[in-house]
């Protein structure tokens, strides 16, 4: 037993089955909330636990819930299961292995904000997970855990799955809401934020899958328990998706405050072919790339420490690059991705990524001597602060930090 909090199916293989989940205390937290707790009390506990969003931005979850506009009804909860950042595959494992804990988290969130309907927006490629969750939801309705008059109270709740159809942008919460409304996934101008203007213009909490999966155990064990698991800046545990040039890629659940060395070398088995590690992308393709120095490897990981190093934790998708990889190739790949996924709504992102694609391809093909690297840097700099949403902003990060921190990879060979 390793006392997993999120990946509990690794300790209890059948925890995805309703009877097994209930044997292990499943839905007690939801029941406790609905039958004996005031809504604000639930939100206060989540707030006090220090839980922060696991989708990338790290926004305090309880605080988000407390922003719901009580003068506008109905309220909605939407679980963001659109996991599409290159290097991220944690929500998938949580939903496949421990689906009921995630669903219970959605249900508690719905109770806390007085929503009677919640949607789970899954990327279309997670079709099989949609089927699995539909099955689970049917079981929950049958067991009286969803529906009208729950536990003899007047609280009613139902959950529905909704499949996207292949658009990274729909992971951005307002684009997701547009998509759920049956439109193209174009991000909205923010503010207003979803807790005041969300799905169908109604107050809406949008939370990532992993974020929600934490909630049942926070309610069970208390805010202090969760606080104590992490660091002062970021409480609790995180499922890190480890990929790239490591021997054992995969998901690893660790407490905040663990180091990248622990993750990459102890859990991930070190670098393929025992090569030298070169760089780390801690937030998938959206990363500011870090040089893999001893300092970086030994830094206790949380949101603040990654920022202090000149990067970002994002959704905790750690891509490891070794000495065989050149950064001009890496940014060619990331920009190819962002150019494809840019929704086209705002000009800086649409045009900027188009030009960055042309430039990163030329540079990778060897055009290093005619000012293209400088031009690329300039295009990226000019996009920053001008894009409508985070997609455009973050598309520039790997480009600029690669050129800044790995200048040798962009020099003409003598």
């Amino acid at each position: 037993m390793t006392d997993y909090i999120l990946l509990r199916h690794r300790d209890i293989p059948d925890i995805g089955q309703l009877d097994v989940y209930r044997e292990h205390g499943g839905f007690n937290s939801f029941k406790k909330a609905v039958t004996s707790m005031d809504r604000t009390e639930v939100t206060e506990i989540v707030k006090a636990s220090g839980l922060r969003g696991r989708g990338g931005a790290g926004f305090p979850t309880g605080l988000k819930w407390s922003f719901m506009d009580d003068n506008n009804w109905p309220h909605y909860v939407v679980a963001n299961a659109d996991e599409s950042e290159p290097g991220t595959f944690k929500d998938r494992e949580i939903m496949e292995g421990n689906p009921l804990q995630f669903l219970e988290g959605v249900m508690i969130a719905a109770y806390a904000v007085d929503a009677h309907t919640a949607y789970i927006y899954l990327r279309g490629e997670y079709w099989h997970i949609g089927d699995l969750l539909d099955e689970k939801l049917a079981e929950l309705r049958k067991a009286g855990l969803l529906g009208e008059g729950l536990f003899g109270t007047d609280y009613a709740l139902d959950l529905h799955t909704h499949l996207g159809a292949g658009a990274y942008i729909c992971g951005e919460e307002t684009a997701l809401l547009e998509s759920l409304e049956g439109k193209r996934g174009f991000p909205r101008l923010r503010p207003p934020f979803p807790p005041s203007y969300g799905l169908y213009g109604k107050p809406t909490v949008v939370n990532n899958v992993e974020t929600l999966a934490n909630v049942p155990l926070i309610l069970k064990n208390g805010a202090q328990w969760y606080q104590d698991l992490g660091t002062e800046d970021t409480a609790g545990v995180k499922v890190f998706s480890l990929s790239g040039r490591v021997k054992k890629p995969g998901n690893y659940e660790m407490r905040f405050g663990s180091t990248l060395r622990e993750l990459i070398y102890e859990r991930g088995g070190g670098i393929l072919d025992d090569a030298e590690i070169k760089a780390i992308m801690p937030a998938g393709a959206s990363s500011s790339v870090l040089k893999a120095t001893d300092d970086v490897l030994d830094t206790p990981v949380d949101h603040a420490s990654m920022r202090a190093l000149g990067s970002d934790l994002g959704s905790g998708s750690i891509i490891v690059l070794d000495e065989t990889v050149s950064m001009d190739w890496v940014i060619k790949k990331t920009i190819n991705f962002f150019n494809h996924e840019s929704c086209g709504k705002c000009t800086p992102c649409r045009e900027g990524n188009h030009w960055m694609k042309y430039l990163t391809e030329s540079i990778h093909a060897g055009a290093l001597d005619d000012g293209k690297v400088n031009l690329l840097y300039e295009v990226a700099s000019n996009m920053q602060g001008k894009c409508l949403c985070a997609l455009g902003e973050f598309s520039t990060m790997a480009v600029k930090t690669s050129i800044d921190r790995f200048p040798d990879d962009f020099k003409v060979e003598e």
Partner: protein
Amino acid sequence: MKELQDKYPQEIEDILAKYPPDQKRSAVMPLLFLAQREDGYIRDEALTEIGRILNIERTEVATLVGFYTLYYSEKEGKYRIQVCTDVCCALRGAEEFLEQLCQALGIRPGETTADGLVTVEEVKCLGACDKAPMFQVQTGEGFAYHEEQTLESALELIDSWRTEENDEEGS
């Protein structure tokens, strides 16, 4: 035309039941998947019919087919093999895998085999970065992931489809 309504009355009812009665437009994406079920692409007539079911313009339906990559307006292979070649998969051999697969099938990425059975496509991250090389197979019925693939395992899978096709034709 009410082809979809004739063919899938229960499915359409179940889909519409998920959304508030005054927000039927939300059902457009699941209805598009439904329209794609049989042939793997969405016919023009289906766009009109979906628009009518949801009380929106046909153009508003069509625009989604263009925006979202998993909807198609033209017939391609019965099985779409979609290989992820994003950065994480490429770090673990996905680009070489794609090249070998295409070579073995005698097509280039984006093309369909002469018998109309298989289309091979290069796609963006599928959330299986630790299990590269990998691909998903899209048919009208949905998606299936195939992870930690080799050229041999992929060709075996394609052979199993061919056998299935031949059996169906023979019966």
